[in-house]
């Protein structure tokens, strides 16, 4: 088991700043997800840890060792690529043991480890096949096998599930998480899919435009988003953000006459955040909205509505029936209410 430490790591591509002096530490044996929209620097961070690129400034340590200038092979890690990067002319077995052959591991040891990995991943019947003869899910398993057979303390994954269909993605999510816990590997996992991050991670590092937006457990990011960006990125669907404006000594929802149940003073504007699942249809609720459409998901429905200029989603159990244009009112529990500063986007407590 190894920990990873980044100290003010920056990466510049010419003038463009891909990473802006980010620092974080990971616990040995933990599952860390680098999450963010495309172009946020998450893949760059992973490639810097792997040693496939070198940072423009800053240090990277793995365990106690400074690896900033070490080649990838000497960092004690394995990696699963988004495209799997399987060698097309080699059989599944040869793909998996490629690294062992490079390191001249004895035949007996190679066979033993191959048997273990194929057992673990259920690849036994595919060993003689070529990658082109495998389905996407099977290729992904082979890539995983090649990473696991190295028995390195750290495994890096770059959006490994993005090429799979939804059903398989769900299965592989559980499987990868289970493997990571069973083998006690330190896993750094890059994804833009917040569902993957929420379901798998011990800790999520949310990145935005080359900076760390928030670090925390899935619970922390969900329950206490530090910024409107986190609020709008975590959760499916994400949190409703409704701008408020001054109304006498209180606040009202921007562009409406309804007063908001908020008693916080602020010179700038405020943004009220409530998750769709925390909103309850309530005829005496403070929030008045106009229904735009209803999306039926089976277990629940998402009612899309408008409050002044803002869009709103309300999660309602089973199939909700509303005409477009219908007026609804909603309420929420006080502890489900989040407030953000309109200018800075930062969370306001109290």
């Amino acid at each position: 088991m190894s920990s990873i430490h980044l100290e003010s790591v920056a990466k510049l591509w010419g003038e463009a700043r891909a990473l802006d002096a980010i620092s974080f530490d990971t616990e040995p044996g933990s599952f860390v997800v680098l999450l963010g929209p495309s172009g946020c620097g998450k893949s760059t961070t992973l490639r810097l840890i792997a040693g496939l690129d070198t940072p423009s400034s800053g240090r990277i340590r793995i365990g106690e060792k400074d690896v900033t200038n070490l080649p990838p092979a000497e960092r004690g890690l394995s990696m699963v690529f988004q495209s799997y990067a399987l060698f097309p002319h080699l059989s599944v077995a040869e793909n998996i043991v490629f690294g062992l052959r490079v390191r001249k591991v004895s035949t007996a040891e190679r066979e033993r480890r191959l048997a273990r990995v194929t057992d673990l991943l259920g690849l036994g019947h595919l060993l003689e096949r070529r990658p082109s003869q495998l389905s996407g899910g099977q290729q992904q398993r082979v890539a995983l096998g090649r990473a696991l057979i190295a028995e390195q303390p750290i495994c890096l994954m770059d959006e490994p599930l993005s090429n799979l269909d939804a059903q398989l993605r769900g299965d592989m999510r559980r499987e990868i998480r289970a493997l990571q816990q069973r083998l006690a590997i330190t896993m750094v996992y890059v994804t833009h899919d917040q569902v993957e991050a929420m379901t798998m991670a011990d800790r999520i590092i949310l990145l935005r435009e080359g900076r760390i937006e928030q670090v925390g457990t899935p619970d922390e990011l969900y329950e206490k988003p530090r910024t409107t960006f986190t609020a709008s990125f975590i959760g499916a669907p994400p949190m409703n953000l409704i701008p408020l404006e001054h109304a006498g000594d209180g606040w009202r929802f921007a562009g409406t006459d309804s007063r908001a149940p908020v008693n916080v003073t602020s010179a700038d504007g405020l943004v009220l955040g409530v998750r769709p699942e925390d909103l309850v249809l309530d005829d005496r609720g403070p929030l008045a909205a106009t229904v735009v459409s209803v999306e039926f998901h089976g277990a629940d429905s998402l009612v899309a509505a408008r409050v002044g200029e803002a869009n709103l989603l309300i999660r309602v159990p089973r199939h909700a029936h509303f005409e477009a244009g219908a007026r609804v009112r909603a309420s929420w529990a006080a502890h489900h209410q989040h407030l953000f500063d309109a200018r800075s986007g930062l969370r306001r407590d109290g």
Partner: protein
Amino acid sequence: MRNGAVTGWLLLLPAAALLVLFTHWPIVGSVWDSFYSTPKGSRPPVFIGLDNYQAMVADEVFWKSLWNNLWFALGTIPVSIALALAMALWVNSTMRGRTWLRMAFFTPTVLPMIAVANIWLFFYTPQYGLLEKLTTALGFGTHNWLGSESTALACVIVVAIWKEAGFFMIFYLAALQSIPPSLSEAAALEGASRGYYLRRIVLPLLMPTTLFILVNAVINAVRMVDHIIVMTKGGPNNATSLLLFHVYQVGFSFWDTGYAAALTVVLLVVLAVAALGQFVFLDKKVHYQ
């Protein structure tokens, strides 16, 4: 279904007609003519069986051309392929001026054969040629490179390599660029050296290209004639006479068309055997994506 087949054949017809007219029929014609004597004036060709082939066995220039061609092939093919691969690997790396370098390597292919031959003719010219200037400046004696039997074939081989390598490089370059960079990264993570990666991953993935280039190189080696005509005319003393040049001489200088047809048939058989051998033996080792 029936209709589909008819449409299919109709679509194939234009290409098939051209192939039959300009490729298959001439082959059949050559084989046919090779069993007949050469028509002269009022005397029509008569069937003479294998007489033309018997004459060939006794023809010293034919045997000389065959051997020359073998040496020519052995001299040009491996070197031009190796050079092409080396150049492609070089210009595929990220560095400044690689576009310029790619163009420079490819230029010999674009130049017309006659011009190329004339440029090299100047290089090899005795006394005031470029090569002579270089060797005399370094203190070596003068030498008539194209004019002596011992060096003429080697000189022609060098020109052919110079002309072919850049052309083959383009195919290797295209193949190299179709290999995703993540493969080299995956190999680097596993600790594979550049040499190991080249040997175990790149070369096997280039095998389809190598096979294609090899077949082309063999065909080019056997049908080489233009350089020879411009530079040496087969001389001195047939030292640079190649098979197709011999066919050309017999057919269009001596107008012995019957014998030329027999020589052409032999040339075709040599090519067919070479191509067949390459496909049968190498195809098993080639991985197609």
